[in-house]
């Protein structure tokens, strides 16, 4: 029986959420996506009127940490939306229908919504030896991904595996693990790197597509600017210690107990673009640096091969850019490593005060919206 698909608002209503919950969600969403408060109305409108977007989610060479991160999304409304409010027609992880019947659903969706469905990919695709290193239902991942991408409206590459190849692509890359962007063409690809990405970044990316029916602004590496335009270093609450030359010399030393900068015990924050410092993890509880370990740079291409992790960054490719641009860092001053390498699109460093202001603004937006209901 054909039924008119419910809109996101209708779905939320059906699930017991009030109009107020719904508006709060839209405001929250606006803050995460980083749009001005005047844009909230557009989100509300979009959610009220849009039918559910058909979505298919694939798993290849991965560890399922992306799916796990996704269900950690802290706001129940968000997990509710992305689990039930989009039309998640295929996902090996979350749907009951699987196997042949799931494939049937998959193929129906691909046929019925040709050019309209959203394709999500978790995992890299092995290309060595005709792709025999990852087979599902007797077919290679390579075969499956090419077929599905042909009719997709857009592709989201979840996590570092799908965006950059991640661990299985680390040297010597025994299976020829390849990121999605190197396999398919002719379809817009959004890379959402991280091992895994923050749950709310994943939810935020989907909801952006859903609410605005368009690809979020992407940087030169195809990442949503909203979440990947700032380095962890620039948004790190320990940054003043770095600026002042106050460093942890060894794990758990007196400086570690005071929360000094972890740069000298190995921190990739200065060369890592991610939202960890702003959004933090698991409902804002903490992030790696806050819990005493340096950033391992898990959202950057080839981060596994840029180690060892506990190595002092002075010999890290690309770090020279930052020191010259910023003209700070007493210790780093000596680091005169050339090699533009990975981060040719290094952004200008924002001053802490500006960052703080930006964060404050978004908080105010949300508060204003709450008050205005």
């Amino acid at each position: 029986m054909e039924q008119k698909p419910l809109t996101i608002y209708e779905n939320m209503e059906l699930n017991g959420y009030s109009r107020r919950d719904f508006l709060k969600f839209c405001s929250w969403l606006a803050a995460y996506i980083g749009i001005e408060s005047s844009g909230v109305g557009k989100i509300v409108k979009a959610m009220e009127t849009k039918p559910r977007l058909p979505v298919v989610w694939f798993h290849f060479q991965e560890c399922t940490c992306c799916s796990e991160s996704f269900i950690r999304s802290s706001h129940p409304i968000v997990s509710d939306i992305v689990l039930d409010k989009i039309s998640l027609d295929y996902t090996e992880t979350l749907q009951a229908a699987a196997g042949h019947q799931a494939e049937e659903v998959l193929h129906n969706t691909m046929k019925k919504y040709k050019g309209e469905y959203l394709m999500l990919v978790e995992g890299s695709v092995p290309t060595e030896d005709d792709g025999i290193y990852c087979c599902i239902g007797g077919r290679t991942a390579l075969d499956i991904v090419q077929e599905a991408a042909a009719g997709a409206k857009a592709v989201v590459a979840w996590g570092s595996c799908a965006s950059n190849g991640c661990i299985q692509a680390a040297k010597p890359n025994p299976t020829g693990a390849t990121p999605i962007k190197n396999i398919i063409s002719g379809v817009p690809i959004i890379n959402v790197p991280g091992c895994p990405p923050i749950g709310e970044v994943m939810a935020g990316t989907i909801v952006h597509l859903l609410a605005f029916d368009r690809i979020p602004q992407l940087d030169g590496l195809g990442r949503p600017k909203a979440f990947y335009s700032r380095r962890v270093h620039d948004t790190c609450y320990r940054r003043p210690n770095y600026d002042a030359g106050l460093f942890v010399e060894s794990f758990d030393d007196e400086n570690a107990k005071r929360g000094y900068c972890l740069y000298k015990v190995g921190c990739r924050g200065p060369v890592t673009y991610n939202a960890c410092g702003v959004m933090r993890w698991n409902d804002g509880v903490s992030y790696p640096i806050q819990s005493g370990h340096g950033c391992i740079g898990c959202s950057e291409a080839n981060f596994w091969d840029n180690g060892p992790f506990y190595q002092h960054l002075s010999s890290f490719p690309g770090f020279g850019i930052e020191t010259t641009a910023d003209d700070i860092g007493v210790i780093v001053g000596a680091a005169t490593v050339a090699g533009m390498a990975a981060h040719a699109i290094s952004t200008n460093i924002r001053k802490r005060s500006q960052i703080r202001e930006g964060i404050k603004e978004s908080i105010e937006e949300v508060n204003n919206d709450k008050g205005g209901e």
Partner: protein
Amino acid sequence: MMANRIVIDPITRIEGHLRIEVQVQNGKVVDAYSSGTMVRGFELILKGRDPRDAWAFTERACGVCTTVHALASVRTVEDALGIVIPPNAELVRNLMFCAQYMQDHVVHFYHLHALDWVDIVSALKANPNETSRIAQSISNYPKSSPKYFSDLQKKLTAFVNSGQLGIFANGYWGHSAYKLPPEVNLIGVAHYLEALEWQKEIVKIHTIFGGKNPHPNYLVGGAPCSVNIDDANAINAERLAYVGTLLKEAKTFIEQVYIPDLLAVAPYYLDWGGIGGGLENYLVYGDLPTNGYGDVGKFKFPRGAILGRDLSKVHEVDGKDIKQIQEYISHSWYEYSDGNETGKHPWDGETKFNYTGPKPPYDFLNVKEKYSWLKTPRWNGKAMEVGPLARVLVAYASGSKEVQELVNGTLKALKVPVGALFSTLGRTAARGLETILISQWAMEFYDQLISHIKNGDSRMFDNSKWDPSTWPKEAKGVGMTEAPRGALAHWIVIKDEKIDNYQLVVPSTWNASPRDPSGGMSAYESSLIGTPIADPEKPLEVLRTIHSFDPCIACAVHLYDEKGTYVHQVQTF
């Protein structure tokens, strides 16, 4: 009657992709083959790297039971280098271990396994008043009013009537093997949703100590989080209180929701206390040290092996004895330098791909030859089951009073004999029982951590062997732990400050591996033999047993006849 060949592929939600092929004859499974169809080559990637980085690499083996590989890895390196971590770091690791178990076991029960037993559609017919009465008779959980259940039922009805069943689409609703009354089914649905909400809370313990979840940070020599009760930038009173609150909430959820549900469902399925037993040998490495990792005798989960279901004797397990644990490749897509039939201890392990399977797309694997990317581990030549049932049995047989009381009390309450433990139901029950203990032990570890800090010990890291120049030229180590799914160990050989060899033998390798050189089955294959199939079109029973091992799957099953023609598909959650 001809045997039907049933192909189950993919079985997902594990690291890698799992495929199962079974033969069904006269309503029973007569043969079974288990195959891993994805490989990444971790061992090859780790060679030549800094041993202190290995935890981060191996942690990415699995994002579902995240942390367990990191723990095994840091222990492996510490073992090789002779590092003893401070007691606080051990407690932090224990707390992270417990948080992982509580999250993983609850998610397994509700989101991976429950729908093998709970019929969602039947819940639509439930009487909310009666549901409330039953719920209140089994638990003090406050969300139990008739209104709560009738609201839920209304939502569920609207959901079903919308024609869009989402994640519940195409289950075996109405299958004759479902035995619960509608009211118990409705309770199951309610708690399915409650558990999904709750699971993201308990993992915050990982975030506090390790900075994030999934994949929190570990550190060779201790834990990366420092303690300073007078600073906002370290583990202080607020952080500890946060952990304490999460632990209390978890314990409440387990006591008021998970366990009452398990005990309410079990009586309807007591026949499953006689199905799915499989192997008769159980292997446990043990974990949760109470006096340091070096003092194996003081682990909460004792180490040991049980053979032939003989609970009167626990055999000693030694990961360093090169004769005890060996891996075979006679049916795996690898080659060894000295032939196909030999077994290798992980320190001497080799990882060289040699795919000889059918060219994709294919309908069947050649199960007479090599048919999996998993190697086949054996303990003293024997196939062993690992996981919650093995842990509970070894603890029981080792004389753990708290385990014995819990197990005996449960058997008595369900009015079943000890033999019922060796089954699909026993495996599922054991998982619940150990979760109760873990929720209690976590509180003990938490109190000890507070007490240490109160007494002035805030050490979290041993720095003495951090610098590679202090290491011997060559060193070997083994690190053992218990992943939620079973015995997990890593083996390392360090040469000239670099990894020379690294091997992981994971629980799925023990349970899901292909046959050994003598044709002996591993746990999955063995447990499926004899499983009754009421309706070959809908082999729900196969999924119950496979899920009881917690392969962590949204299970997908294809059925084919012997000629490879598609017969029917199976799906469940």
